[in-house]
């Protein structure tokens, strides 16, 4: 399932002009700071409402300012891992992980078993702790698990591993690969570290100052 995005949006100094079809599979979104990568993810998630925007997920219209169509973020079923963990400080790690899992799916969300996620992200040791007592990398692993367990149709990852240490990064990346392959969820991955996406990105979109300067198969870049 591919995602179509067509957006014109001004935010501070940034003028974002983007018209892209993001194919299913793994898309790396790269470019310098301030080039509009995070804004693009926010538009896809519905957290930013631009003056002019069309977002289509497969046959579903998520946003179309020409018709006034607008699906709010909580109905879009995106799994969004932000640059910072944004965990719920008053809930335990376990409660954080299950926040987005629907009640009847708590143990087995769309074939995504909470136990598997907990094991693969190595979270079992601190399920009953509050986020404040976790390191930055541990918090980010919880944020990733929480997004996966929300049973998403689209994964948006904004430098999700920037604060995770090397050893865990090397363990998490193959798991993400398997996860995407099993569940066939289109993924947009924002990063500065080319090594994280080299060899796994199917498609690359490169932004500069709010415009696309390259879009194509990773092999062509």
């Amino acid at each position, binding site marked *: 399932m591919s995602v179509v995005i067509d957006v014109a949006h001004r935010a501070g100094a940034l003028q974002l002009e983007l018209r892209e079809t993001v194919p299913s599979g793994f898309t790396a979104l790269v470019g310098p700071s301030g080039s509009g990568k995070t804004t693009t993810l926010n538009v896809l998630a519905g*957290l930013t409402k631009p003056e002019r925007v069309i977002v289509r997920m497969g046959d579903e219209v998520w946003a179309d300012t020409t018709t006034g169509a607008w699906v709010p973020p909580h109905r879009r079923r995106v*799994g969004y891992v932000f640059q910072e963990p944004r965990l719920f400080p008053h809930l335990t790690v376990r409660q954080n992980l299950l926040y987005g899992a629907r009640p009847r799916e708590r143990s087995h969300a769309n074939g995504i078993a909470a136990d598997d996620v907990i094991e693969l992200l190595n979270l079992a040791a601190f399920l009953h702790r509050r986020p404040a007592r976790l390191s930055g990398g541990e918090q980010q692993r919880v*944020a990733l698990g929480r997004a996966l367990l929300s049973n998403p149709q689209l994964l948006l990852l904004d430098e999700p591993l920037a604060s995770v240490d090397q050893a865990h990064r090397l363990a998490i990346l193959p798991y993400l690969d398997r996860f995407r392959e099993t569940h066939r969820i289109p993924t947009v991955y924002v990063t500065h570290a080319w090594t994280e996406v080299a060899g796994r990105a199917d498609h690359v979109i490169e932004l500069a100052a709010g415009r696309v300067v390259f879009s194509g198969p990773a092999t062509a870049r």
Partner: protein
Amino acid sequence: MALTAAELTVVWLSLKVAIVATLGGAIPAIAVAWLLARRRFWGRTALNVLVHIPLVVPPVVTGYFLLRILGRQGAIGGWLDAHLGLQFAFRWTGAAIAAAVMAFPLVVRAIRLGFESVDRKVEESAATLGASPWRVFLTITLPLAFPGLAAGLLIGFAKALGEFGATITFVSNIPGETQTLALAIYTQIERPGGEAAASRLIWLSVGISVLALVASELMLRSRQRSDA
């Protein structure tokens, strides 16, 4: 010191008025505080000014407005009396309304600060996890704003307990019906030879206020411990 029957009546009435005023004002105060903290809309400044009026005009003026609006001859009060048999002027329920209105700006300010301290990014992440705006509010915003909420309700209770000017104007000073602690103290001070009775009531009111403060401190502290 054992309390006399008259003193018990005053204390009980004051607590009843203050508790009803605090709880009755809580939901509107939460709603207004949230609107002011989180929404940009036409008339927001006007709402902010309206909420603060009881804080800036003399309490007797607020009491007078309440009488004009909710009294039996009043615009809304007349209708309520004629159709529902509801009367507020010269009733303890009126005293609770006067106390709630006078406390309202203070309560809204504290709760609003509580809401403003909640990171909107955390609310956004809840939305991306499929939580409706109501669920975000109830499970994320409200619990995280709890310190502001508790502070607001405490200051509201204290203000309601001590309210004088709007109360005496709107519901008068009727023993057993509208004579709260502040009004009873005033009555005793005005009465020749009433100093001893007044000082007992004064110490009572100080005691109740300190108790409420200590209770809320303990509540906040036990909550912080459970968060650790």
